């Protein structure tokens, strides 16, 4: 009864938003630092992140052809074109990992925030969006004994990675064509704290830092969608951007700065399709590529190949509201993806690339479901990703992971009809 009273006081979507905010506020004081994400993030640019919300994560990340009032994708800006209200979307990603070497294994768990997004429908059929997108995640912690000179135990905590701050514009040009553009600022940095403790108590604990920074520069991403009945095709093109990087090693009272290297965020593209199968079933597929190469960053510690992600998924859409069965009203999703990391890392035991490089390949099966509010504006989506990456023979380690994606989508239903088409 109390909730009915609350519902009477607030519009449903506002109550939903308040509930979410309240939960976050209550939880934040107890929250540990969110960290991630792969032992393979120790070098290179870090673990490539899939920015999509849980609904599309459950479909293997195939979002280039998604469209609809709430079926938005972070890959294709054109997917916003049908949004007719205010949408807020946040995704959190708790993960469990099992890291194995030829001799031992170890567990880890962490939580990441791959994306957050706000969208508003403007007059003139224009949709404006703003989002935070995680590009790569370079969180790691290693503890290792060192014996070069005085014996010590070295703990290195790494953080940072590539991030993007994105502004999106989209518009449905004609009923079958949607166009969108992103202007994204390439942000982020890499930070490492080195804490060296010596077995000789006469030696002070050394705390040094390593920072990798680059100027924040923007680039464009262009997207388009062709929609015919239940069929849709989507495509995205990303422009490149060059970033001079500065690496600074510091300790109390001293620092060394290394410049002259240039990180080039390469061009890329994604193409995807959504096709009806039968009844409420549809299939989605996507190929995404970023043209990383040796010229993207000259380094003896990491080489690059094109990032490629192959995504596929099948969705059983929710039945009409009138359907009697609760489970029939739950959408079900299943998918898979194969990801080729762009980073080519030194072989196991090698100090650099002089002995050759090893690629990191990642594969995962994905599952998901969701709930939608009755106004179909907001909802909760869940995804589960079960996958592996790395290999013990060449990289020296492999990882198995399970990731639970949780996305909240909140809309302002009262906006509808008051300020747009």
């Amino acid at each position, binding site marked *: 009864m109390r909730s009915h009273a609350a519902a009477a006081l607030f519009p449903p979507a506002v109550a939903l938003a308040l509930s979410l905010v309240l939960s976050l506020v209550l939880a934040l004081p107890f929250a540990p630092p969110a960290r991630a994400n792969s032992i393979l993030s120790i070098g290179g640019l870090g673990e490539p992140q899939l920015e999509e919300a849980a609904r599309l994560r459950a479909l293997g990340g195939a979002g280039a052809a998604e469209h609809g009032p709430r079926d938005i994708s972070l890959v294709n800006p054109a997917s916003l074109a049908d949004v007719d209200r205010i949408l807020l979307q946040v995704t959190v990603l708790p993960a469990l990992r099992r890291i194995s070497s030829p001799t031992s294994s170890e567990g880890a768990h962490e939580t990441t925030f791959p994306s957050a997004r706000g969208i508003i429908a403007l007059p003139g059929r224009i949709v404006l969006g703003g989002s935070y997108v995680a590009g790569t995640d370079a969180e790691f912690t290693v503890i290792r004994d060192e014996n070069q000179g005085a014996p010590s135990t070295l703990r290195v905590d790494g953080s940072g990675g590539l991030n993007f701050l994105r502004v999106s514009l989209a518009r449905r040009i004609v009923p079958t064509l949607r166009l969108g553009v992103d202007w994204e600022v390439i942000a982020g940095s890499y930070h490492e704290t080195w804490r060296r403790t010596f077995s000789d108590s006469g030696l002070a604990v050394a705390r040094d830092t390593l920072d990798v920074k680059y100027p924040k520069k923007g680039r464009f991403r262009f997207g388009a969608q062709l929609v015919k009945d239940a069929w849709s095709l989507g495509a995205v093109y990303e422009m490149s951007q060059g970033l001079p990087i500065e690496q600074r090693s510091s300790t109390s009272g001293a620092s060394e700065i*290394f410049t002259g290297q240039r990180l080039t965020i390469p061009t890329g593209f994604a193409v995807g399709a959504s096709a009806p199968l039968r009844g409420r079933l549809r299939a989605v597929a996507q190929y995404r590529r970023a043209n990383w190469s040796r010229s993207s960053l000259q380094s003896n510690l990491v080489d690059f190949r094109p990032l490629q992600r192959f995504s596929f998924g099948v969705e059983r859409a929710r039945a009409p509201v009138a359907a009697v069965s609760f489970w029939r009203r739950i959408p079900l999703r299943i998918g898979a993806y194969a990801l080729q990391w762009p980073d080519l890392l030194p072989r196991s035991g090698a100090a650099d690339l002089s002995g050759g490089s090893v690629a990191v390949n990642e594969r995962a099966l994905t599952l998901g479901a969701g709930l939608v509010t009755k106004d179909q504006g907001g909802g909760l989506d869940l995804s589960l990703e079960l996958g592996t990456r790395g290999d013990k023979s060449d990289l020296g380690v492999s990882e198995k992971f399970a990731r639970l994606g949780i996305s909240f989508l909140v809309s302002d239903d009262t906006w509808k009809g008051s300020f747009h088409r």
Partner: protein
Amino acid sequence: MRLNPVFLVALSVLSALPLVGCSRKAEQLVGAGRFSRGPGGLGTTVRIAPTADRDTYVEPGTADFDSILLVGTSGLFEAHTFLSVVKWTLPDTTLPGFAAQTISLELPRNLTLGFDPTTVNLSLASAAWDTTNVAWPGPAAGAQLGSAVDDRAAASFSLPLAPGSFPQVVQWAHNPTSIPGFTLQAPPVQALAAYVAGGAKFRIRYSHTVSGAPVVDSVDTRVTQDFYLHSPLSPAPSGVDTALAWGGLYKTGLALHFPVDSVPAGVSVDEATLVLRLLPGTAVPDSADVNARVEVRAGTAGWNEAITEQSSLTPGSAVLASGRLLVLYSSTSRSLALKLPGSLMRQWASMPAVNGGILVTLVNRENLTKIFQVGARESATPTELHVTYTQLPPVRF
């Protein structure tokens, strides 16, 4: 739309779970071997232990404005104390039956040294002094005002002025600048006497009558400036001594210079420890040194081993490192180890020209006569500087 309360609760719980429930537990050991940053590894920790390439011992100067006043001799050490009064306090001479009785200089004894009776003379100084440059032997003794044997027995020593000095004091009170000051000196070969600085005062005892009965009373005049001058450091360091005299009545400090040019500029300094080794047979720190502290200051000027005064190093005012003598001392190795700031090592390494060495001094000593003999670079147990450093983190890319 009507929100299902179950849905709201589920949302709340699910939104909180990722934040509260998933504490960080990172991989730490498995896969740590993948952490590689080039052929240089993750940084080598290097330890060097240079001995001093210059060392000697130096005194602060012959004027001492510290908390003690010395008079007399101890071996080759000789000290004179100087006093001055800015304003005198006189008794009310209009009191009924007023009669000046005695005038004395009251000196609180410092009984931590100077245990033998000694004769102390109070005289007018023959000339005024400038405290910014006064040095041994200072103004000579002029007219003697009084003399007494200090038996070194009680907390206070009273040195009476000659009878009939009251008219003189009245004159000094009316014109304080008419006299340059006072000096306390001992006849030759008299033992050393020590007093507490800041506590000396002239006392005028007088009598007067109250209701027909005699009453004895007194007024005190505080000595406003006191210090002592001592003879120059003797024997003076030769530059090739095997022992460095540290402490003693001359309050000598150690002037040390270490070459640390081999330390790269961009390193993390894990250790910079000064190791002073006491020579066999020398005094060692004990319970009497419980309050003694070691202080290190950086020298800011070039110097050679012929210097005898600390001013030749132009030591900085900032204490770079300090510690309690007893804590720093290891009876096992008969050495003292004191941590120096790593920033000093980096400064010396990056700019050898500013390496003016260090001055190591002892302060707050109870026993000023105790001398620690520290091994010089010419000895078998020279002073060392242990420096350990590690290269900065190598680059990520």
